């Protein structure tokens, strides 16, 4: 297990390094220049050259990359070209918002999806199964940004219940603790609902398949034969065994979930890593793009690793197979 863990850690590190290198190459291979965007049309060639030298952008690419890695090793993420603030501060403000959104929606969508999938598997081929299948396929097919727009239309413009933008109201700093909490939750409601609804589709579809797979195994027949009531068979025997593939999928679906969050954050102006990334890419803000990609790659790799460990903890067979 430890050897496997070490192997996975090494592989994860390699993936992060690869993503960072690829991003660096793509950024510098693409047309467009942060200095020209920053100084505008009226800047003279000398001014552009001076600014490039000041930021170290005139050096050869391998040297730039090496010094970026070196500074990263010392915990220095550099300074945002477009914002003039340290990248660490820019991302430090952003990542808790993303993690909050992604983690909560992951939890909710898997709990609800697992529940729906279990019901469907228990009542396979019934009318309930069909109705739930149609529902989950539709949820699975919904494009996040469109669902977000429709929710904003209904709950913000028509019903006037919930705010559509940002993570907190303008008056957040002056609210009492209780009101502050309510304000936060109201702002979280729409982005979280959007991400969760979309997540439920995939989770329920997979849970149904995994449950049906498990239900066809001999030990379920045994459990039924010894007289357990169906609810016990499903909850105690089937669900527990179906969890292993589901937890693995949970890890594998992290990149997709993070991808979804990028769109959702942009629609709701949610102050997370996704929105920072979109803005930074458009401004050719090299240090911020590099840092945001690194953080997202680390999050994804760590999530996968965590799912692997969780699967081993849930299922002794996985542990012994890899020992």
């Amino acid at each position, binding site marked *: 297990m430890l050897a496997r863990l070490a192997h996975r850690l090494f*592989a994860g590190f*390699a*993936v992060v390094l*690869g*993503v960072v290198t*690829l*991003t660096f190459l*793509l*950024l510098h291979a*693409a*047309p*467009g220049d942060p200095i020209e965007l920053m100084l505008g049309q009226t800047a003279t060639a000398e001014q552009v050259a001076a600014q490039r030298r000041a930021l170290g952008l005139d050096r050869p690419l391998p040297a730039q990359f090496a010094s970026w890695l070196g500074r990263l090793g010392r915990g220095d993420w550099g300074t945002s070209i477009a914002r003039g603030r340290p990248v660490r501060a820019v991302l430090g403000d952003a990542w808790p918002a993303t993690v909050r959104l992604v983690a909560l929606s992951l939890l909710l969508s898997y709990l609800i999806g697992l529940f729906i999938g279990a019901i469907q598997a228990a009542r*396979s081929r019934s009318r309930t199964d069909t109705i739930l299948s149609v529902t989950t*396929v*539709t949820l*699975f*097919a*919904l*494009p*996040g*940004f*469109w669902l977000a*727009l*429709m929710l*904003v*239309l209904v709950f913000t*413009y028509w019903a006037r219940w919930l705010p559509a933008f940002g993570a907190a109201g303008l008056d957040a700093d002056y609210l009492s603790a209780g009101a502050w909490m309510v304000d936060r939750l109201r702002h979280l409601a729409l982005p979280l609902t959007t991400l969760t609804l979309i997540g439920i589709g995939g989770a329920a579809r997979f849970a149904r*398949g995994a449950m*049906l*797979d498990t*239900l*066809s195994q001999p030990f379920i027949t045994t459990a039924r034969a010894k007289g357990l009531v169906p609810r016990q068979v499903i909850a105690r025997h089937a669900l527990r065994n179906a969890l292993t593939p589901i937890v693995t999928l949970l890890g594998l679906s992290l*990149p*997709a979930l*993070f*991808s*979804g969050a*990028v*769109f959702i954050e*942009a629609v709701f102006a949610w102050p997370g890593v996704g929105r920072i*990334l*979109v803005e930074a*890419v*458009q401004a050719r803000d090299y240090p911020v*793009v590099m840092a945001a*990609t690194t953080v*997202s*790659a680390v999050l*994804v*790799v760590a999530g*996968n690793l965590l799912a692997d460990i969780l699967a081993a903890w849930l299922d002794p067979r996985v542990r012994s197979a890899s020992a």
Partner: protein
Amino acid sequence: MTRLLRDGRAAFGAMVLLVVLLCALFAPLVTNGQPAAQRDIVATRFVPPLSSDTRGEFHALGTDRFGRDVWTRLVYGARVSMGVGVIAVMVSIVLGVMVGAVAGFWRGPIAMTLIGLTDFVLAIPRVVLLLLIAALWQPSTALVIIVLGLTGWTSIARLVHGEVRALAVRPFVEGARAVGAPRVRVLARHILPNALTPVIVAGALGIGNAITLEAGLSYFGLGVQPPTPSWGNMIASGRDVLVNAPWVAAAPGVALVLVVVACTLLGDALRDVLDPSQQLP
């Protein structure tokens, strides 16, 4: 085939896709034929669905802020969105089958490199890569196809790799090699045809995914560029007039969901019919 048609999911999926394809093919016949036409903007803009403008022209899905007929743009947008989805998935399939087949058939450093590459691309958040490439170069329809194709092949490569490895040790492959067939021929004629079943399923599911991603990129202005209508940039243009004219954003979204649901159901049904071993009770 009969089993497929008797399956309710497949019948629904195939029917929806057929209707959309026919509409897209015969777009000039089922619409007013001018997706970009702007007449008297002030008189014809924001006409609600199922009503006529002041000139007496009927608009089933209303008009947008330039007085363009939403139904017409929806049908012409289907040409673009479906076209992008289908071509991108074909690029993914070609790449994925090549990588998966080579990695599964030849062991050694080449296979190791290809598997490593696949796992690596699989671990990158796809949208981050899409955003990077699409935002850094001049956005265009061709770029969207290339980008979607280049980022979508990994799951197919994984599938083909697994199938090829399992098939390579089967007796009929040994037989083909025993009679002296060259390795490339064994792979192309004996193994690949048997390994393609899951690819068809993955392709059907992938088209829905590609259409959604195209819409996402176009929504950010990084995909298909206006005035060419695509479902994504139609939703994006509807975003700005959400309060005045919600139908502009709603209509292409509903079309998109319908098509993706159809692709998913068809893919599910295909898997059950083509691969009985994976069939669920």
